[in-house]
């Protein structure tokens, strides 16, 4: 019996428009006082009517084109009817039978994951439960914040072409990178501007199984963990001779399990019908070609450029393109400094660690580009050694101080003078007789220990190559 996971994804991205999908309220709801960016339209007040935001349409088309989709010439909106307090009209304006675009694909590690459709819809508001956990359980009442109501979304639905949790995670990462590069969405999973649901089933000897839908996966890690858990659960049910039940399940990240949310019988009948308040939308060839012409560099083109022009390797390119801001920062550094390989190395090994330690954001680190440039020059000229360079770079960012100042004020210039280093070497040899003996008895490891001691004594400023030479000479003299 051959069991294979079959995974399809539904991803919602908030579009980076200034105003909402059907009214002119601003979209930057994060951190706002509740219900302060609302109007009769997004509150669904009686008598109000929607008017489509053309900018949202353009962004949605840009995403659809980058996903290699066919744009439908005539599209329209539908109403999706259901009752919930965060949905003030009791219907969501969405798309149904004729989405904006169909039949695209995204390539993940050389494999085409087909995109079934891309459509536009409006976001709902948010419920606030006054409990310690912030969850509905045990709340005496709930409050509604309509600020997010009407924020434009695109929903991207894949075909069930994904075959592992890792592939699913990589797909979402690549999609996030894509929407960021396009300027279509900021793709922030924590803040919910990118949300992912998954449909999962197990095919047995090539025959499709019953699927479950998983909701509430709020990070890349959660996607991978939830899918792995669910695959296992399906497999166990199948192998023990049971049957998977078609249902919607909730991922509980803290417990690391999925639990049943609602069964097939409880599935909503959304009573979709064409939205009479909006006219059908005709997408002209001119509009499509205009958007194609202004398409920014896509992540895969960027990665190719880095490989071809800069000679970077697969792994480096993968890390640098994991988010658009990082890639932009790297490109800015190379423009300023040149030396793409070194810059790539310094960003990945040093800067990302420093940024993490200091709780900075990459996009706020442009001030550090001249510092990096200076550090690399000092290094190249031999003014400081590699170890000092790393420490100086970190300090320059922390203190916002030019590296050359730090080097000068602390006297960190590299010491390459053999005579000057000879004293230090001699002192170390005198103080470490055991290590000297052990080296002389043939244990080469002791050499590195002694070298380290010299560096320590010289406070890391010594030129390691010169130290090595002097140390070898002195030890030879002793033998």
């Amino acid at each position, binding site marked *: 019996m051959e069991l294979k996971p079959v995974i399809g994804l539904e991803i919602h991205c908030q579009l980076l428009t200034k105003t909402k999908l059907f009214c002119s309220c601003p979209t930057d709801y994060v951190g706002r006082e509740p219900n302060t960016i609302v109007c009769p339209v997004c509150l*669904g*007040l*009686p*008598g109000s009517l929607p008017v489509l935001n053309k900018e949202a349409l353009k962004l949605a088309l840009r995403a659809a084109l980058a996903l290699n989709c066919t744009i439908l010439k005539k599209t329209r909106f539908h109403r999706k009817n259901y009752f919930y307090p965060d949905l003030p009209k009791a219907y969501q304006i969405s798309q149904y039978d004729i989405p904006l675009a169909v039949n695209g694909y995204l390539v993940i590690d050389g494999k085409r994951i087909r995109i079934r459709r891309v459509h536009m819809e409006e976001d709902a508001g948010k419920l606030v439960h006054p409990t310690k956990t912030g969850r509905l359980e045990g709340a005496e009442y709930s409050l509604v914040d309509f600020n997010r109501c009407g924020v434009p979304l695109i929903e991207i639905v894949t075909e069930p072409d994904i075959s592992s949790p890792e592939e699913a995670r990589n797909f979402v990462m690549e999609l996030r990178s894509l929407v960021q590069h396009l300027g279509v969405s900021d793709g922030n999973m924590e803040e919910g501007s990118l949300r992912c649901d998954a449909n999962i089933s197990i095919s047995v000897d090539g025959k499709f199984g019953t699927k479950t839908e998983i909701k509430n996966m709020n990070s890349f890690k959660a996607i991978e963990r939830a899918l792995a858990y669910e695959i296992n659960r399906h497999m166990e049910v199948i192998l023990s001779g049971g049957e998977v039940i078609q249902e919607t399940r909730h991922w509980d990240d803290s417990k690391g399990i999925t639990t049943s949310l609602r069964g097939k019988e409880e599935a909503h009948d959304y009573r*979709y019908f064409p939205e009479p308040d909006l006219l059908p939308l005709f997408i002209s060839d001119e509009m499509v070609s205009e958007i194609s012409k202004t398409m920014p560099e896509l992540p895969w083109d960027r990665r190719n450029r880095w490989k071809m022009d800069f000679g970077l390797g697969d792994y480096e390119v993968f890390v640098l393109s994991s988010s658009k801001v990082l890639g932009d920062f790297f490109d800015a550094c190379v423009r300023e400094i040149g030396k793409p390989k070194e810059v790539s190395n310094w960003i990945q090994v040093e800067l990302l660690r420093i940024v993490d330690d200091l709780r900075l954001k990459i996009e706020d680190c442009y001030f550090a580009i001249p510092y990096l440039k200076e550090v690399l020059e000092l290094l190249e000229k031999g003014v400081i050694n590699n170890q000092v360079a790393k420490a100086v770079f970190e300090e320059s960012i922390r203190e916002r101080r030019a590296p050359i100042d730090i080097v000068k004020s602390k006297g960190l210039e590299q010491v390459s003078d053999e005579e000057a280093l000879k004293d230090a070497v001699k002192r170390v040899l005198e103080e470490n007789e055991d290590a000297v003996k052990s080296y002389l008895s043939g244990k080469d490891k002791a050499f590195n220990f002694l070298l380290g001691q010299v560096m320590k004594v010289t406070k890391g400023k010594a030129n390691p190559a010169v130290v090595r030479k002097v140390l070898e000479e002195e030890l030879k003299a002793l033998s």
Partner: protein
Amino acid sequence: MELCDMPAWKLKEMISKGEIGPEDVLDSVFNRIDAVEGTLNSYITLLRDSSYAQAKEVKRRLKEGESLPLGGIPIAIKDIICTKGIETTCASKILKGFRPPYDATVVARVKRAGGIIVGKTNLDEFAMGSSTENSAFGPTRNPWNPETVPGGSSGGSAAAVAAGEAILALGSDTGGSVRQPAAFCGIVGLKPTYGLVSRYGLIAYASSLDQIGPMTKDVKDCALLLQVIAGKDDKDSTSIKLNLPNYLEACEVKDLKGIKIGLPRECVSESIDRSVARVIEEAKRVFEKLGAKVVEISLPHIEYALPTYYIIAPAEASSNLARYDGVQYGLRLKAGSLREMYLETRTNGFGEEVKRRIMIGTYVLSAGYYDAFYLKALKVRRLVKEDFDEAFKEVDYILTPTSPTPAFKIGEKIDDPILMYLSDVFTVPVNLAGICAISINGGFSDDGLPIGIQIIGRAFDEYGVLGVASAFEAETECHSRRPYRR
């Protein structure tokens, strides 16, 4: 003649000559209201104080030389059209206390034109009904005979204009709700082409059919008010941009030479009242006398219009009225859970007819029934529209009765929805086709009740329809009769 029984265009002339001021017109209107409102119940909300404040403001604007098409004219607004800060109820308990934070586009345009809003008129709850009996605020009575209904759903507006409780009124027409009450009350009611008048601020019943229309004492007033409210509105995506003609000019038409008017054989069956048939016969002769050629035509799918309407309109209504859930505004009844709160609020907040249509609409959109009902209804709607397209290749206008009977007795049809629905059998097809039609008084029944005739025109040919109506009016006397004129 009292000022409140005069048409707006006449009052405008008198105001501009300085013979009277806006307050004099208001005095007359409110005197009439004081005299008859206890019987008629045309209004849900009266705005006496703010009316006089508005009149003062209008006087100032007129003095400053502003040209105000409705300068100082009292107008009643159907209580389904949003008025900023003024309770807008749709005659439903569920919207009790709802004060919109904005004006409907038509209200803003009326105010800009110097109209004075005297009150919000009664209607069938959410415009669902043909008698203004389905109101949480009690029924409105017909000024011609208080034992009879004023028609509906814009019965309050129709009764108010007929009785001189307002000079002009706005109604809304989804299946005949402007024209049928206009006919029952002996006034003029126009259902504009879908897209001519902005629906922004009109609380939706059936969005693809709803249009706001003027309800007036004569055709010239109708043209005057239409000019003010018509035209593209960026807030309504379904409103159409076009160069508006001067509708008042249409009222100068004196003869109908070269015009061809179709009389659908489906609309002169035995099922219509004898007096209605007589009025149509007389109207035909009037049009011929005016030089028009009246020919028999056929609208083969018109018999399916009513059942089609009663699928499409409730379907849209079930969605449009879902927002009255007790969460944000209006009525909320306490209950133990969210689901129970929804159930309690909606069960108690809506009247019987509204609940009936919500249930029909929910049913026809449900999985498994959508294709058989809703989708089929959309196809029939297209056939009805094509019937009109065909007919308009042959004729310029179509003449029908507005309703098969004159005003019926209060309580007569309230327990038989199907019988009530039949009252709109000639008006509903016009909404399905999205074209325009006017109802004008064509004569009276043996009992002295007014009888309306409907003139249907091509999409956006309001100018032509007003012209035909105007010529008819000039040739006849019946429109000048008023129930309370002394």
